[in-house]
C-alpha cells in the first residue's frame, strides 16, 4: 500500500493518489490534464464510454467530449 499524497493540481482541486501509483518526476505536468483543458474521446464502446465517465469524475474541470458514430452500441 502506498502513502496517501494530496496532489494539488493547476485547476485548484485536489486529487488524492497513493505514492506508488502517482506519475513521478518531471513527467507529471506533461502527462496529467489540468482545468480548462480539453479531452476528446473517439469511440463510445467498451473503452470510450467508461473512459469518458471516469475522466469527468476524476477531472471535473477538464472539458470531456465523446464522439461516436452509432447512436446505439452493444455493451455486453
Amino acid at each position, binding site marked *: 500500500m502506498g502513502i496517501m499524497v494530496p496532489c494539488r493540481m493547476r485547476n485548484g482541486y485536489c486529487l488524492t493518489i497513493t505514492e506508488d501509483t502517482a*506519475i513521478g518526476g518531471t513527467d507529471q505536468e506533461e502527462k496529467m490534464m489540468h482545468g480548462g483543458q480539453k479531452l476528446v474521446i*473517439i469511440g463510445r464502446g467498451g473503452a470510450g464510454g467508461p473512459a469518458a465517465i471516469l475522466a469527468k469524475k476524476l477531472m471535473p474541470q477538464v472539458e470531456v467530449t465523446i464522439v*461516436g458514430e452509432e447512436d446505439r452500441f452493444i455493451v455486453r
Partner: protein
Amino acid sequence: MAGLATVQSITNPSEMFDKAGVANISARATAIDAVSKIVRLSDGRSLRYDKMILSTGARPFVPPIEGTDVRGVFFLRTANDAMKIREHLETERPRNLVGIGAGFINLETFSLLVESKPEAYKIGIVEVLDHPLPLMLDAEMAAGVTQRLSEKGFALRMGRRVSRILGRNGSVCGVELDDGSRMEADLVLISAGAKPDLELAVQAGLKLGRFGVQVNEFLESSNPDILAAGDCAEKVHYLTRRPVPSQLRGPAVIQGRLAAKRLAGYAIPFPGVLNNCAVRLFDLYVAATGLTEKCARAEGFDAFSVRTVSRTKHGMIAGAKPWTLQLVFDRRSQRLIGGQIVSEGETAVKEIDAINALILGNKTIGDLTTLISAGHPDCSSEPSLEPIAIAAENALQRLRGS
C-alpha cells in the same frame, strides 16, 4: 436477436453522458490533425484537443471467400447488426442457419435462437479448427460441449473451411465446404474474429503493432497526447508478454478507465490480458482464462493439465449439478497458466475469476494445494471437493510420478 432483451436495455443511453457532464457528439471522426491537435467530424465540425483517447474499436474480420456480400449473410458486432439480423429473422423466416466459426459469438447466438424457438431452426456450424470454442478449451474439455450441441441438433462440421457462400437470386442459399460438400443455408452468420479499426490511428501517424495501436503499459501511444484503449489498442498477453489479438469487452472497460486515470495523474500499469471469458450454451456454462494446454505448448511452455469433477452444491442438497475444471500448469516453474470450466450450473462458472486472480498472482501448484474456499451447501461443493485445490493435488502427484 432472440427477443430476450431490448436494444435499449443492452446499450449505454446518451443520458448517461449528459448526466456525467460529458459532451456527447453523434458523428464520425473523419480525420485527426495531430500537429494542430484537431479532430474533424463528419458533420463539418472540428474539435480542438489537449489530450485524446482513441477507442475506435474493431470491425468484424471478413474472410476472403466468395459470397460474403450476399443478402442474408451477417456479421455481429454492434446493436445495429443485431437489429438487422432480427429483422431478417422476422421478415424472411429463415430455417437453415449456418455459422462460420465455432467461437462463443456464433454458438451463444444460435443456442439462444434455438432456445427461443426450438422447432424453428436447423443449425449448422463450420469451424476450421477441430472442436468448438477452440480458443477457450482444449479438445478434452470441448467434448462435453460438442455432445450437448449435437444433442440439441447442431450439425457440427469441425476441421472444415467454408470455401464459398452460395447465392440464388441475390440471397444466400448455402455454403460449400473445402471437401466439396454443401450445407443448405437461409442465413449465414460469420464470426471469424475482429480486426482493430485503425483508420484514424494510421492517419494520425501513430505507430502500429501487429494487433493494433502500439501502446506502453500506461496506454500511451507514440504520440504523447494520444492514448489508445480497447479493441484498437494492441495488448500483450500477461503470461507470454507477447502481443496477442484481444477484442473482449472486459479489457476494453478496464483500459478505458485506466486511460482516464493516467490523465488524472495515476501511474497504474495495465498488466496484460489473459482473455478470460464465459459463455452459456443452453444449460452448459463455459469459461476459460489464460492459456489452453495446446496454446501453452505452442508458446514454449512445458505445459500439462489436470482435470477434476466437482458439483455446484453439497451432496446432500437437491439439485447439485456437475462441473469440470481443468487447470494448466507449467512444469518448469510449476506456475498456474490456464483454467477451463464446463459446468451444468451457473454458480461454478465464476470460479474462473478466482483462477484468473491466481494466475495474475503467479501462484504455483504448491500454493494452490493450500487454497481455502468459502463454502456453503447451497452454492459450492463440500470443502473436501473444492476443485482448485483437488486439481492442484493431482498436479502435485503427477509431478512426483513423472
